């Protein structure tokens, strides 16, 4: 039995995931904006006694150290064993695809070049000569179309035959000085990776590769040789790009350019208009929110009834401790499934649609206008948006940001982005008992609190602003299968991690209830409730809501009785809703924060956001009660 490990590499949107889909036929995610795959997707296939493992990597334009997603791909390329890197190139803009191809060839990893979008290119009058390209680069070139599966079997054949040994492929020759520098540096490089490649990365000032230097001092000596190149890294990049563009020119033939039939510039004239763009972005989200609340509510009712029926069919009539605890666990699970699941899934479905059509990247551009005011890069829009679904996967999505600082900052903002459970709480408790205006005041309060928090952080920390540089993919017709697959991928975290923990949270609450601990916290924590102007029993749902947010409403009814409007004044309902929704919401998101940033930072963010939230809510309550 033979094992092969194949890496799929290419720029964002070039069709890596679609190719994986075509090769393996499993559900994998495909997206239409940069930065969807933060982690590596793997898929296995067995062909004639060979186990082939395909590894899909986050999109990269080049090998450099810009962001964590690129790091993931770099690690996959250089830190792990692999047999072939299948590099996917875009036939409509071959030269920039060739850039990363040349870099990987420089690293002596066996490469198979795959050309996608050939039909699109032909429509645009671009004809790529694959055989000529193959001769230039001396690597196999396969034209493919993941949708019709054209070329996939040929690709598999080539992969099966390829030798592990480094190939004599195209070699970029830099000018004499740089070549001299490479040679000198090569003598001081350790490790199994090709010395020429490492030397180049070091000369390009890629700090990740400095660790391969035996003697750091040598770099200064080499830089002396290279005095003629005051901008050495730039010169290397220029040469590489020049080579890519030269090869692309040689193998590409421009036919008579017919006018493109469909131009989507019209849509961009609205979506990227200085005022209409913002309006469109805002409007879209209001509509999405509306659909979410309306449809989500509907599905929720259906789910609720079903789970209630199932629960009652267990028919646990005895009031033994075990069955009480078990029951609360099941209630927790049921609440999670019936309240959060429909919202989260629907939301990710809509988001996936926006992504695949290509609209989302335009929204990022519009959102960046505000995000840059709080010193966040445009990309942070994605985790913030995901936060409207579930805070835990959104915390994980902060990985697409370049620096740890930005990641922590964005994750802390998720404390003020209401997730599905919090939305359900606000609509279900505040909206139901206090009216829709009260519910929207809670959303507004969260927004204002988040804004002040963000402005504060932007003021005290020195975040280097990352300028906007984003590719806007062409509008494409969405494929239902892809969107479903992607929504599922995002849901997976939620289903496998969040939902079971919801049951655990329910059980934990059940135990505390049985042991009678819940009432113990009422007295010591009464300063908090009195600061918020709430009856002291409300601390129970506020505190235990952290174990299971979806049970907050149910707990409130337990401690106050079902007639909440009688127990709480409208303003109190508002304060309760705000206090319950503000801050890092639950133990699951805390867990995710610990996983991403370590327990120290995670606990700090959680505590700080909750304390700030309580203080803020109390102040707002005091302001409101004057009137």
């Amino acid at each position, binding site marked *: 039995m033979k094992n092969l490990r194949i890496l799929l590499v290419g*720029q964002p949107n070039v069709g890596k995931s679609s190719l994986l889909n075509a090769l393996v036929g499993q559900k994998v995610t495909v997206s239409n904006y940069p930065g969807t795959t933060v982690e590596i997707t793997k898929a296995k296939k067995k062909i004639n006694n060979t186990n082939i493992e395909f590894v899909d990597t986050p999109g990269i*334009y*080049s090998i*450099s*150290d*810009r962001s964590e997603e690129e790091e993931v791909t770099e690690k996959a390329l250089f830190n792990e064993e692999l047999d072939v890197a299948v590099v996917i190139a875009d036939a*409509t*803009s071959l*030269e*920039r695809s060739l*850039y*990363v191809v040349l870099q990987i060839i420089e690293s002596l990893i066996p490469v198979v070049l795959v050309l996608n979008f050939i039909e699109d290119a032909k429509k*645009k009058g671009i004809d790529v000569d694959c055989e000529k390209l193959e001769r230039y680069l001396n690597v196999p070139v396969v034209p493919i179309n993941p949708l019709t599966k054209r070329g996939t079997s040929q690709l598999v054949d080539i992969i099966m035959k390829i030798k592990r040994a480094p190939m004599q492929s195209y070699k*970029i*020759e*830099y*000018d*004499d*000085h*740089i070549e001299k520098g490479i040679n000198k540096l090569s003598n001081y490089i350790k490790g199994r990776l090709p010395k020429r490649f490492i030397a180049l990365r070091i000369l*390009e*000032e890629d700090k990740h590769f400095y660790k391969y230097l035996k003697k750091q001092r040598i770099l200064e000596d080499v830089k002396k040789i290279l005095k*003629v190149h*005051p*901008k050495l*890294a*730039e*010169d290397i*990049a*220029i*040469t*590489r*790009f*020049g*080579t890519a*563009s*030269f*090869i692309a020119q040689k193998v590409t033939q421009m036919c008579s350019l017919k006018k493109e039939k469909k131009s989507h*510039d019209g849509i*961009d*004239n609205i979506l*990227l*208009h*200085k005022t209409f*763009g913002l309006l469109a972005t805002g409007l879209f989200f209001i509509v999405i929110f509306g659909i979410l609340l309306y449809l989500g509510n509907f599905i929720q009712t259906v789910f609720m009834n079903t789970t209630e029926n199932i629960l009652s069919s267990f028919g646990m009539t005895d009031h033994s401790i075990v069955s009480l605890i078990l029951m609360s666990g099941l209630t927790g699970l049921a609440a999670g499934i019936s309240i959060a699941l429909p919202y989260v899934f629907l939301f990710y479905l809509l988001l996936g649609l926006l992504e695949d059509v290509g609209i989302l*990247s335009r929204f*990022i*551009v519009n959102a*960046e*206008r505000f995000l*840059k005011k709080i010193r966040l890069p*445009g990309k942070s829009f994605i985790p913030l948006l995901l936060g409207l679904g579930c805070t835990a996967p959104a915390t994980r999505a902060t990985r697409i940001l370049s620096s740890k600082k930005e990641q922590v900052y964005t994750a802390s903002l998720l404390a003020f982005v209401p997730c599905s459970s919090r939305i359900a709480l606000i609509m279900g408790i505040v909206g139901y008992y206090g009216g829709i205006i009260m519910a929207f005041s809670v959303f507004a309060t969260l927004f204002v609190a988040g804004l002040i928090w963000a402005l504060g952080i932007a003021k005290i920390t020195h975040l280097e602003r990352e*300028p*906007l*540089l*984003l*590719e*806007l*993919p*062409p509008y494409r017709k969405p494929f239902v299968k892809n969107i479903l697959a992607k929504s599922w991928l995002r849901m997976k975290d939620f289903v496998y991690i969040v939902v079971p923990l919801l049951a655990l949270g329910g059980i934990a609450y059940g135990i505390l209830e049985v042991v009678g601990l819940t009432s113990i916290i009422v007295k010591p924590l009464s300063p908090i409730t009195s600061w918020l102007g709430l009856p002291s029993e409300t601390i129970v749902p506020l505190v235990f809501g952290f174990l299971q947010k979806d049970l907050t409403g149910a707990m409130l009814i337990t401690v106050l009785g079902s007639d909440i409007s009688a127990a709480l004044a409208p303003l109190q309902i508002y304060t309760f809703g705000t206090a319950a929704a503000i801050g890092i919401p639950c133990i699951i998101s805390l867990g995710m924060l610990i996983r991403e940033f370590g327990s120290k930072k995670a606990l700090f963010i959680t505590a700080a956001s909750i304390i700030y939230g309580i203080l803020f809510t109390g102040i707002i309550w005091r302001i409101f009660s004057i009137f």
Partner: protein
Amino acid sequence: MEKGVIMTGNPDVLRIVKEDILRTIAEKKGKIKINIIKRDVKVYFSFISKAIEYLEKEGFIQSEKGVYELTEKGVRKAKDILRKHFVFENYFKRTRTKKEAHEIAHILEHYVSEEVINNIQKLSTFKGKGNSLAKLKIHKSGLITNIAISDNRLFERMASMGIFPGEEITITNEVPNAVIIKIKNNKFALDKEIAGKVMVLEYEKS
């Protein structure tokens, strides 16, 4: 062989002169009189008239009463020449002496045909390095002449995305925080801050 020396009998000479003429006409917004060509393309006149004859025959230029004009085909060809020119111009700008310029041409000779290098070394007449992209008006096009960004990573990222000196660039939309540009068939949102550092030589889109 010493580069940059045009020798008679070299089959490439005619081609170089032809490309020079196309470039000269392109620089003068597509229309030019013969005496201007004579002034700017510094080779024997017999070469020029020969080259013009070929260019007309091949359909790159057309003439009317001594005024030469690029045809559609000629415009495409001229753009290609300008594009190559800028790639190298970018190099030569940084190096001061002729000798150093010559050294750096060594890099290029590996992947660019000799006649292009000859051509480039002969070109010293090109005027202007263009304006900042931030000043380019919406729907206007130009060629990127230089990207003056000190952050290597950002530069490499841009290069690998295809935003590079020599590329033809069009502004399709403008939002307060960014310009939306089109290079080849790809669209990008480029921060105003970056746009300020990208130099572009504007030309009328044909």
